[in-house]
């Protein structure tokens, strides 16, 4: 099948030159590695400690001095990459299912996390600097949620992909739940005026509206890469948007594949479907050399799956933008392609351009404000209001002393000191201030609104676990008329108790304690992957009034 089959056949090529370079270059690589090695440094935990006073009402006299932490070595953790790779004739860099993670997933320490557009851009620049001809494609799935912040995030992500130099971007179902006019607005406002969207079976408003191209051919390194994308049939059921035209993926492919085949040396299908449906498409359309599938686990496999007797590669890219896949194409009969799963860990510096993009993103959140983000706040189901941890500390002095020693006490100030600051970002604030719903990124009406306007609600305060304290405080301070029974009832409403065995970590498998469940609203797998209640509890252990 013309040149495209060179992908499979290959020719003997650059091997000899590569081996010479490899042999003599050992020293160079060792030097580069030695230079790169970051050694032992302190991390953000030091900054956290410095923030303690900034979140007042507490002073920093009792703050806990953080232990110095050795940075995780990315190559020890995630392994070397591109081992034995000569420079490819052309290379495909494949990403997808970023799911809203513009930055590395979670906040468990940057050296412990993977992902982020800043690192991805650095990888692309480094490959480009080394003369690798690159085709950049993204499966889609830029966002996970719905609402004004998701729209801003989608716009930011597509703008970033354009700036990085992507050639084609598909759609995930979450993208297509956003208002269609917003999706169009993003497409037509890109700097060169050319939409990045490619899909054979999704049209914004209609298939012929012109905002989405069914296929695209990109020539890199002399190879014509034919690209198309489909949204899986099962994914369509997740979308309820009358301003879209979505057709059956197989039918759509039948229409575009013959022409694309004529124009391409290598064909790639971005299949936003689960692996089962993608495999089925692979069997139906063996013309594709590479099929990139959605779904699967967060961490993609080390190597692609071979289907159609090894003629088609099924590639997973995982979730949250933690990895990208790179496929090198060679004129080499023995090795026509090489595959590398690239962990976007901190071996890659942040690119200045993407860092500026994050600054603009945070600035837009600040400018537009909570009300315009649809975050006016809802009443707390208890009917009570948040009063702030200082009010709690007036009576619960010993518990407050414990609280002061923990990072919870300066959680909001931590956001202020980040670059760019994040105190206007609901997705951060929901665990870094008092009076928000952690997993819904939504404030209660009496919750934190701003560093100055609600200074008493800075920090991840007592009431995030114990509930709003207004009635309890009013009763204790004699501001409301309650008898002893009412007083006790209000105290009881604030109490949460460990279940037997919870503090010792001796609950049966599959059972999570009541307090642990509360903690895990924020100490989730993204933000606190090593969270272990029994280990953490001694540092925060407190009893109402001792």
């Amino acid at each position: 099948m013309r040149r495209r089959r060179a992908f499979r056949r290959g020719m003997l090529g650059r091997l000899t030159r590569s081996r010479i370079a490899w042999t003599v270059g050992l020293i160079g690589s060792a030097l580069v590695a030695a230079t790169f090695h970051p050694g032992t440094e302190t991390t953000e935990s030091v900054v956290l400690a410095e923030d303690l006073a900034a979140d007042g009402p507490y002073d920093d006299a009792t703050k806990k001095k953080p232990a110095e932490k050795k940075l995780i070595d990315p190559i020890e953790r995630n392994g070397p990459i591109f081992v034995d790779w000569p420079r490819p004739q052309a290379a495909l860099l494949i990403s997808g299912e970023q799911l809203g993670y513009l930055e590395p997933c979670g906040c468990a320490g940057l050296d412990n996390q993977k992902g982020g557009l800043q690192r991805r851009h650095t990888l692309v620049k480094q490959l480009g600097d080394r003369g690798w001809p690159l085709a950049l494609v993204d499966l889609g799935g830029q966002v996970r949620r719905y609402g004004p912040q998701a729209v801003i995030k989608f716009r930011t992500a597509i703008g970033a992909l354009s700036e990085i130099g992507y050639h084609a971007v598909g759609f995930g179902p979450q993208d297509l739940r956003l208002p269609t006019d917003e999706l169009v607005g993003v497409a037509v406002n890109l700097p060169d005026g050319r939409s990045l969207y490619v899909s054979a079976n999704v049209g914004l408003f209609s298939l012929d509206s012109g905002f989405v191209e069914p296929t695209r051919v990109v020539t890199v390194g002399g190879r014509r890469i034919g690209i198309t994308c489909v949204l899986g049939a099962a994914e369509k059921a997740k979308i309820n948007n009358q301003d879209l035209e979505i057709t059956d993926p197989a039918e759509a492919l039948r229409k575009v594949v013959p022409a694309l085949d004529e124009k391409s040396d290598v064909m790639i299908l971005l299949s936003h479907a689960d692996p089962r449906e993608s495999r089925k498409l692979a069997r139906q359309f063996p013309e594709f050399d590479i099929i990139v599938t959605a779904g699967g686990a967060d961490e993609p496999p080390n190597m692609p799956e071979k289907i159609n007797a090894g003629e088609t590669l099924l590639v997973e890219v995982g979730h949250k933008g933690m990895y990208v896949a790179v496929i090198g194409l060679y004129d080499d009969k023995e090795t026509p392609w090489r595959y590398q799963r690239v962990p976007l860990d901190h071996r890659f510096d942040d690119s200045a351009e993407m860092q500026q993009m994050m600054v603009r993103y945070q600035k837009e959140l600040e400018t537009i404000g909570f009300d315009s983000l649809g975050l006016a706040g809802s009443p707390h189901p208890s009917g009570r209001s948040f009063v702030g941890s200082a009010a709690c500390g007036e009576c619960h002095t010993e518990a407050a002393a414990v609280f002061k020693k923990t990072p919870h006490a300066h959680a909001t100030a931590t956001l202020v000191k980040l670059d760019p600051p994040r105190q206007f970002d609901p997705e951060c604030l929901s665990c870094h201030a008092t009076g928000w719903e952690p997993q819904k990124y939504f404030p209660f009406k009496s919750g934190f609104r701003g560093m100055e306007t609600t200074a008493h609600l800075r920090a991840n305060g007592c009431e995030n676990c114990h509930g709003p304290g207004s009635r309890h405080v009013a009763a204790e301070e004699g501001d409301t008329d309650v008898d002893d029974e009412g007083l006790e009832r209000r105290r009881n409403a604030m109490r949460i108790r460990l279940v037997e065995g919870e503090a010792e970590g001796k609950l049966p498998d599959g059972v999570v304690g009541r307090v642990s469940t509360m903690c895990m609203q924020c100490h989730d797998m993204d933000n606190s992957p090593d969270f272990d209640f029994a280990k953490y509890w001694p540092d925060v252990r407190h009893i109402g009034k001792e």
Partner: protein
Amino acid sequence: MKTSAVVFSSILVGATIGFGSSAVELGWFGSSQNIEQLLSVSRDARQPDLAPAGAPQPRTVVDRPEYDFGSMDRGTKKTHEFVFTNEGDAPLKLVAGDTTCKCTLSKLAEDEIPPGGLAMVTLEWMAKAQGIDFRQTATILTNDPVSPRVQLTVTGWIVNAMRIEPMDFVYSSILAGTEKTAEVRLLSFTQDDFHILNHRFLRADTAKFFEISEQNIPSDELQAFQAKAGKLLRLTVKPGLPIGSFEQELEFTTNVVDKDAYVIPIRGRILGELSIVGSGWSRDRGILSLGTVDSDQGKRAQLAVYVRGEHARGIEITIGKVWPPTLQVTLGEHKEIKGGRVVRVPLTIEIPRGTPPMIHMGSQQGGLEKGGLGEIILKTNHPQTHDLRIRVRFAVGT
């Protein structure tokens, strides 16, 4: 020139060229087993010294380096023993390397395997990831030059007592005055006899605009999800909600006992026949936020007016009022979409470079009408919507 000098020069030039080429081609990536060895010496004290060339070699063989745990209940642990065999002629040294952050590599029972011997390496994982499918890996470092890093992988999927698919009701757009229905599936993985005990809408003020119904999910569909039972919830949004975004929450309890109550978010948007979209525009508040603008830079916002329905094709839009006059407003060419049922009109609003300092941030500080906000009014020939008002929040500084 003496022969020795020529030879020396050739070596020097060759080494320099080779070094440069290598740095370009291989760079920081780490590159081959030999590169790996150098990296290991300089970077990872745990890596055993690789067996030297020419000496007897160990040879690592792992029986199935990837293992599928299959289904796991959330919060439970499973372990697997990987079998390492040394099919070489020298002792094989094993050292535990790193793992992905969510699994545990046990202390190695044996850290050296004699030729022909074998050893077990145990990987433990607790099913607490957020997703359904999981893949976790651990690395074993060896002194085998062919396999200095061996990656062990466990895969599987996590079973919750119940799953909500998708996790929310989203209505991307509902034309004002019409109703729309969306579906969510509740899937039970533990109870054959699964039913909803009760439900309520948490936001009482708009609850009357939502209507819910349920039906059993057919068995063939359940099999596709590998679920034991399930309910299909159909939620209809009835006419009457105001134009703009809406939010609601559906709380319900079931006879699945792992949680007191479940809450499904409900979100969407009611559209009028005319709407504006673009960066910085809040459709709910009718405000375009441009923030603080440097006079030397100026700022431009690219918006668009969308017109839907029977009046779309014949729509005419003109610029009415612009305040302050320094704002430059431009309407672009109409584009008909969906056979003329939707029309898109580009709208550009610009604060030109060199605009003198001014404040229009929504307070009285600016001393201008509408509390200091700027204002643009677009005139239309739509029979119901004669004016489209855009309030503009910005400040210009130097």
